[in-house]
């Protein structure tokens, strides 16, 4: 035990010293990885993605988005004349692997820049590892409030912070004339850092408008058999269902159980799943999708010219339709666009300069919409939309008044009709 004591004393002393020289180290590190790129040398961007394991479906969609962006930028001559080369490694959805991976990307592969992994669960460990090297970590999927509580200076999320996702939907519900307005609502959400804040955020607003909560339960995220939870939601017979889900299987299981129980809500919105394009249609059947809503910042038919360009290229490369493009793709693509803007504005690959620039209240345009970061790296300037499946079309139904908004299909048609 004596050895341990001595060791720890040395350790705490050294840590004080380390902390005091930190700023210098960080800036010098960042300097080392900066503009000193040889002429004609490619700029390497390190990314760890979950190409297998729990998050693999999203991880693979993210890979498509990143690659699409890299192709585009290279066609246009690269970043400041340097070709972009993506250095993608897999973390198998494991938080330890993600820590190891970013250290490898930066210290072994000597990548110049880093992009984030998929999922809030992995972006925090990744950002902490990147922060030690003074690297900016720009990511598209890690918007849970808990991610920003740490106050990392190098982390930027280009997507919509999750807490505000459902607000346009709640506004629409409360704006309905009394006669049409639903009388009851059921909330059911998985206990996930992504879904719970969204679902709780609108409960006050709806109950103030006189809509009675008849069911409000949290279910464990790791469950795969949703029959009984879905049955009890169905038994509550609420007019509106707000489902806090992260993936397609969850939504499809609930929908199937609702149909079996003969329960037809007037409106149904799920926080994640219906935005997954053809994957969602295939899982639930085209007829059942009719009327189901999802909050998001983007959709395949978006009128944004940057988005149109991206979607066209996506279809050229991977086939399918605009409605079939997963929103993961655009989240990843927008990460690239934000980085490109920062590199151009700062005139180099200096991470310290990039971080400073992104914190300078600039507003950037991406395929997903406008981006502006607050001091925590949250995007404070996104537009929240609500989308709805109408037939096999995925349409923007919120915010009301937007030129691209179409009329909400309400009440939702009976399942399978």
């Amino acid at each position, binding site marked *: 035990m004596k050895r341990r004591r001595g*060791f720890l004393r040395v350790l705490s002393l050294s840590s004080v010293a*380390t902390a005091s020289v930190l700023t210098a180290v960080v800036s010098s590190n960042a300097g080392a990885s900066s503009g000193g790129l040889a002429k004609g040398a490619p700029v390497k961007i390190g990314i760890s993605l979950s190409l297998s394991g729990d998050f693999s479906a999203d991880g693979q969609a993210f890979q498509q988005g990143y690659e699409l962006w890299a192709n585009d930028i290279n066609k246009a001559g690269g970043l400041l004349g340097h070709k972009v080369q993506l250095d993608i490694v897999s973390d198998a959805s494991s938080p330890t692997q993600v820590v*190891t991976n970013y250290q490898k990307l930066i210290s072994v592969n000597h990548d110049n820049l880093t992009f984030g992994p998929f999922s809030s669960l992995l972006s925090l460990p990744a950002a902490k590892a990147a922060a030690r090297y003074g690297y900016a970590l720009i990511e598209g999927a890690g918007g849970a409030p*808990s991610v920003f509580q740490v106050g990392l200076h190098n982390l930027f999320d280009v997507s919509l912070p999750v807490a505000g996702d459902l607000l346009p939907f709640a506004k629409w519900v409360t704006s309905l004339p009394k006669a049409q307005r639903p009388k009851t609502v059921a909330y059911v959400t998985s206990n996930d850092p992504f879904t719970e804040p969204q679902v709780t955020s609108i409960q006050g607003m709806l109950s103030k408008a006189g809509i009675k909560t008849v069911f409000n339960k949290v279910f464990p995220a790791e469950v795969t058999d949703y029959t009984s939870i879905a049955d009890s939601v169905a038994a509550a017979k609420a007019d509106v269902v707000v489902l806090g889900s992260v993936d397609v299987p969850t939504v499809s299981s609930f929908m199937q159980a609702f149909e079996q129980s003969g329960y037809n809500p007037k409106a149904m919105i799920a926080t994640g799943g219906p935005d997954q394009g053809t994957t969602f249609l295939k899982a639930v059947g085209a007829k059942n999708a009719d009327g189901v809503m999802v909050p998001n910042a983007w959709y395949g038919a978006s009128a944004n010219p940057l988005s149109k360009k991206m979607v066209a290229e996506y279809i050229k490369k991977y086939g399918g339709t605009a409605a079939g493009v997963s929103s993961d793709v655009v989240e990843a693509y927008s990460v690239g666009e934000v980085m490109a803007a920062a590199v151009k504005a700062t005139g180099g690959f200096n991470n310290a300069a990039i971080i400073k620039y992104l914190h300078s209240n600039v507003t950037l345009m991406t395929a997903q919409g406008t981006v502006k970061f607050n001091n925590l790296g949250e995007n404070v300037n996104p537009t929240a939309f609500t989308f709805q499946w109408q037939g096999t079309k995925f349409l923007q139904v919120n915010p009301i008044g937007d030129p691209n908004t179409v009329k909400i299909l309400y009440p939702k048609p009976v399942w399978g009709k």
Partner: protein
Amino acid sequence: MKLLSKNLGWVVFFAALALFPLVVTNPFYTSIGVYALLFMASATSWNMFSGYSGYIALGSAVFFGVGAYTEALLALHWHVPANGNLFWLVPLGGIIATAFAVPIGWISLRVRRHTFVVITIAVFFIFQLSAINFSFTGGSSGLALPYITWSAADFNNPFYYAGLILVVFITLVSAFVRRSRFGLQLLAIRDDEDRAMGLGVQVTAIKITGFTMSAFAIGCAGAIYALFQGQIYPQFVFDPTFDVSVALMVFLGGIGTLAGPLLGALVLESAQQYLTATYSNNSLYLLLFGGLFLIVIMFMPQGVVPFVRDKLTKRTDLERAAVAANDVSSPSPVAPSTPTEVTA
């Protein structure tokens, strides 16, 4: 001198581990080293009970998770600044894990082996689900530890050496236990529990003591993990694959031996981290891992360490025989052409 030469292998092994981050300074490799050491400590500790007594526990992640949450909660509630002082909490993680082990052991060790395995799994799930569902644990959002801002170049080293100290400590304890009367009683339980009982061994007390002792180092490992990771989530610190991994590492290296768990954990964890980072296709990796694993089990059913030891003793026997034969036939009629080629 004799003690040193007898344990030369061990001294070299630990010296190599101690020198590793000084020679290989790249954080990628030292990061793998940190995880490998945490598993080496956990596997050795697990083996000290499950290996010696034959009671396979598949719920050790309970101690790992309790250690991790202790570290995180104490750091947050006591407002420990983000520096080396955080390491003082590591032994507390071990102590709290040990405290939890007493009632768990008392309950789960009232039954025999196969049922014990399942009770440990059930207890594990109760802990994991509680960590997800209670609010003081941060629920599914987990807990963020104080954000340590050491420089990247040697950020990993304090964690590495903390892990190494833990490994040395638990290896010494395990070696000591193995030679003690207490260790012999555990082995007797493994060989034939009823007979051990008949011979007057207080089997229940011995088992609970062993089980409780094994929690400490695993709890410390969990605490170091929490500190290193900087953020803990319930499903990652109460991780069922941790339970399985630790057991596999021990079986692969050689259950009940001292070197087996260390070797098994070192090889498996480093290989897994390195291969995943280098070859990104996981399903191929699963096939490779499963296949290799199967081959090792089929050909070295006792684990690598006992297998190699058997081979080595056989070889030294052969060599001894050869030397003896040489002695008989000397002086050799054929002179070696060059003196450098002379061997044994």
